């Protein structure tokens, strides 16, 4: 076995679903000072199911409506797929546990180990896919605003699909590599550096877009509807804060957990932080629910597609 024991926490970042530090009480009583915070299984399944359903709805809506076959909606679909993978991972893991408990799967078989590795890869793939999809959405919006008239030449449908293929190929390769070599520090450090780097880059793109929108609002402030623009700019500030705040609050706790698990697993403060791991996992699944609301559902076209889907479900409607 590898002597690098702390790395096992990274190897299975999401697998400590029902792990309880109380089991260590067989070895020492000191562990019980920072008890593992357990989230009920019902909450897990509800949040995961809601995330999967919501993102599936978005995929169906974009596929069915021909008006939505645009690069920006394809990037939103990519985000929906990565969110769905994260929630699916959690659901499959719990089903896996139930099956093992009921005895349908052996405990030490090779199949289970490979399944475990595959599920780890799925989780990391979901994380990387989420980050890169957010980056693609921000870049697409940036091009839309700053190169509005040339947008259709810069971002064709074919280029958007090529970009998505490259992103997902890179994410798949990285996730498999990270899952296989998770006990190396060399994989943990780039993984945790990638997160704030992407965050800063996305923040810079959005702030630049926001500044441009503000300057435009000022240019037409002489119109009678100037009060509308003040409200619009406030809404812009709120929207931006929500975008980045949700991303930070849902992913940063988990990234910090990985860092602490790698570098200070024996420190009592770090151990107490790592005891809230299930809450961090639930936050990531909540991110899968919130992301569609702040990206997909804000589009009027997509909302009207949903209305058509639900109201026309009884009678056949033409698309």
């Amino acid at each position: 076995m590898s002597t690098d024991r702390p790395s096992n926490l990274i190897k299975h970042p999401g697998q400590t679903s029902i792990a309880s530090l109380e089991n260590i009480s067989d070895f020492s009583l000191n562990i019980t000072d920072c008890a593992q915070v357990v989230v009920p299984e019902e909450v897990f399944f509800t949040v995961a199911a809601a995330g999967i359903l919501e993102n599936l709805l978005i995929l169906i809506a974009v596929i069915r409506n021909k008006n939505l076959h645009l690069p920006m909606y394809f990037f939103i679909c990519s985000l929906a797929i990565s969110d769905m993978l994260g929630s699916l991972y959690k659901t499959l893991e719990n089903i896996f546990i139930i099956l093992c408990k009921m005895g349908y799967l052996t405990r030490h078989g090779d199949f289970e180990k490979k399944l475990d590795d595959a599920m780890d890869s799925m989780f990391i793939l979901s994380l990387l896919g989420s980050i890169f999809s957010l980056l693609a959405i921000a870049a697409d919006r940036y091009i839309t605003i700053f190169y509005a008239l040339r947008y259709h030449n810069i971002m064709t449908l074919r280029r958007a699909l090529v970009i998505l293929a490259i992103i997902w190929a890179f994410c798949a390769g990285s996730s498999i590599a990270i899952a296989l070599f998770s006990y190396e520090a060399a994989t943990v450090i780039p993984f945790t550096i990638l997160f704030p780097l992407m965050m800063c880059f996305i923040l810079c793109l959005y702030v630049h877009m926001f500044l441009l929108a503000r300057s435009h609002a000022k240019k037409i402030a002489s119109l009678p509807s100037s009060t509308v623009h003040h409200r619009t700019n406030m809404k812009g500030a709120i929207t931006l804060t929500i975008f980045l705040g949700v991303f930070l609050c849902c992913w940063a706790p988990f990234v910090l957990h990985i860092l602490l698990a790698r570098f200070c697993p024996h420190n009592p403060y770090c151990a107490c932080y790592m005891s809230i791991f299930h809450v961090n996992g639930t936050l990531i699944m909540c991110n899968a629910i919130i992301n569609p609301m702040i990206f997909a559902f804000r589009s009027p076209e997509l909302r009207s597609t949903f209305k058509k889907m639900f109201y026309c479900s009884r009678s056949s409607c033409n698309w």
Partner: protein
Amino acid sequence: MSSLRLISNRTSQQALSNSDYTWDYEYYEYGPVSFEGLKAHKYSIVIGFWVGLAVFVIFMFFVLTLLTKTGAPHQDNAELSEKRFRMNSFVADFGRPLESERVFSHQMAEESQSLFHFCINELDHMNKAKESQKGPSLDSNTHFQEVSKSSGVFEEDLHRLTKFNIPNFVNTDKLVMQSSHWILD
């Protein structure tokens, strides 16, 4: 590779919700963590992290709202404001063909203003670059031409704009409306 072991018969002090199964990992087996002699509160990292995160998000929000409020509004004279008003009316007229799609009918005002933003943006870029390109001939509807001729200074720039890229301009209108919702709604 680490191996995982499923332990289903381990009793635990903490009550598990429906099932008493656990994953067990090797890292549980090496040395317990000692909690004696802690100087600060044991959850100090958790509290510090979340407080820091909240402070950062609030700080970011205040910076963004300050950005909206700093700087005086642009002082336009009456003539220029009238031209801008005509530009706005042009935009409202131009957006009329899209009403037939019955998608944006209830958001015409905001979308025409958003289109106006990007028209202004492109006009600025054109003025700065001082391009004199000659694209395909003007093939838009006559209504657009009538309104554009009635405006003063903007007419020349607008013609240059439309001649530059008129086929994409129609698609850009819909694109701009669809893409600007996230920051203007």
